[in-house]
């Protein structure tokens, strides 16, 4: 019986991994060859949006938790870093993972409330929690969220502007690459097996021993951590904030949902495509202002109807390519090298009766 093993590799996943690695190397060395910053500047936002998109997709596309309260974790990250650096005198770079941990810690009591709700009620519930956090931050005398607050030179730790510009870029790259890696690693793990099973058939998953609530909670906390870290880096990038922008549902959830839906929800490649497509559309629209949201909304509505699985879904219809090695195949053994894929009635293995 031994000789069988689990394989996750596909030919295109090897190509995908090499390509992805090469792209990361190119992007990581960018500050040295993109001297005028014409690429670096727009890329910071693209990269942290990719991190947000991967995290929302992990929640909504894999764990079945359609949250529209992601801005709560961004806001916690923003104000976490602000308070730690301004009041606590913590080095801003040290404060980034601490802000992430704060978001992860606070996500647990939020889950205690929101996980009682299902589907659309869960979505509204997370939004309400985020709004409450925004209001508390605005009203609080400690956070003064109603005012514009900026990181002062002292709290930025005396790092030079160039160091900060480059480090924010690298941090955004790390968030994007790390966010993608988190999704891949989750999907390759037992947690991912449980999430995908529950997504396809909740009752069936329970009947096979899967504790769905537990799998969802772990995912929720991981996403909160990474989204909180992203919020902290966003503050380092902008250096000033208000509660309204830190807890903005439009910026940190609605746009992110747009990207993931356009690219392809429930896949690892989809958010990457979606972020790039959004960037291209956004470039074209320029200062179209009010029309911007009307056009983006229109595109989202059309895509959701015509191609509910996004650009990646269309690609899948053409060729079922797996760019990330996350699916398991049974490999080795005598008879599984060429699985029958035809719609023919299945091949039945005879057995001793």
């Amino acid at each position, binding site marked *: 019986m031994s000789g069988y093993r689990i394989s996750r590799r596909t030919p295109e996943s090897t190509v995908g991994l090499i390509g992805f690695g090469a792209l990361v190397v190119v992007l990581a060395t960018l500050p040295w060859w993109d001297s005028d910053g014409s690429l670096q500047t727009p890329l910071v936002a693209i990269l942290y949006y990719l991190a947000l998109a991967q995290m929302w997709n992990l929640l909504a596309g894999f764990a079945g938790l359609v949250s529209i309260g992601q801005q709560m974790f961004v806001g916690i990250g923003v104000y976490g870093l602000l308070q730690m650096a301004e009041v606590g005198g913590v080095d801003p770079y040290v404060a980034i993972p601490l802000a992430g941990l704060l978001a992860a810690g606070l996500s647990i009591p939020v889950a205690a409330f929101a996980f009682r709700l299902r589907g659309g009620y869960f979505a509204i519930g997370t939004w309400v929690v985020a709004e409450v956090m925004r209001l508390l931050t605005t009203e609080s005398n400690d956070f003064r969220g109603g005012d514009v607050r900026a990181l002062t030179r002292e709290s930025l730790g005396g790092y030079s502007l160039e160091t900060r510009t480059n480090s924010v870029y690298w941090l955004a790259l790390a968030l994007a690459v790390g966010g993608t890696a988190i999704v891949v690693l989750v999907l390759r793990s037992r947690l991912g097996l449980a999430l995908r*099973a529950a997504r396809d058939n909740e009752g069936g998953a329970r009947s*096979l*021993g899967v504790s769905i609530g537990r799998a969802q909670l772990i995912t929720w906390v991981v996403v909160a951590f990474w989204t909180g870290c992203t919020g902290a880096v966003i503050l380092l990038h902008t250096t000033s904030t208000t509660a309204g922008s830190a807890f903005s549902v439009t910026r940190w959830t609605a746009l992110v949902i747009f990207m993931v839906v356009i690219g392809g929800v429930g896949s690892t490649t989809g958010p990457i495509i979606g972020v790039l497509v959004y960037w291209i559309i956004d470039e074209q629209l320029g200062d179209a202002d009010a029309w911007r949201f009307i056009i983006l909304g229109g595109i989202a509505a059309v895509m959701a109807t015509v191609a509910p699985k996004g650009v990646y879904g269309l690609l899948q219809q053409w060729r079922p390519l797996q760019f990330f090695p996350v699916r398991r195949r049974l490999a080795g053994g005598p008879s599984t090298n060429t699985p*029958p894929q035809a719609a023919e009635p299945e*091949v039945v*293995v005879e057995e001793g009766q």
Partner: protein
Amino acid sequence: MSALLAVEGLVKSFGVRVIDDLSLSVEPCDALGVVGPNGAGKTTMLNLLAGDLSPDEGRVLFQGEDVTRTPAEARCRMGIARTSQIPRPFEGMTVFENVLVGAVFGAGVPRREADAVDIVVSSLERAGMLADANRTAGSLPLLGRKRLELARALSTEPTILLLDEIAGGLTEGEVDELVGTIQSIHTGGVTIVWIEHIVHALLRVVDRIMAMSFGVKIAEGDPETVMASPEVQEVYMGVEPE
């Protein structure tokens, strides 16, 4: 308290009483068949046994332990496996991944995936699905889906297997194959509770039959006697035991 699985005074209503004061006891290595017309409450009873529903009244005991409020996933890990009348495959996953879920999570403490491979392979083999291991579950025809239900249940290494109309909708030849598989599972020491309309298939495996009607047990005992009893003949017209 030697019963493997027992229910006492079970009541479940959805507006009307679907299960009405049902008691039942299954001994280790039994093969119990459950028959009854549509709407008799058979599937509801199975859902109550597996933990997909919880009863309004009464108790469910497994190996002497009260599991009435134990959720389905925990009952599975204790050794109660089930198949579903309407198969519930994870359509986007391969057959192998489907069965891996049960082998990893379904038997006691979660296993490492690498340690689960052999159990998956033997479950696939016993259910006659090994050749389809890397096929997407969503592409399987009905017999494949039914066999996948069986392979997934086996991967949880059950003490007792609850089957819900696993032969329904299949051709005569397919039913024959499936009966052979179920026989060998039973011979391997797994206790069986099998709900089935196709009585001749049932009779090849079970050694006891319970007949239900309107949520009430109307007869129980050895198959020939139960199927020949006037109560069963009355509610079960048109189906004759072989």
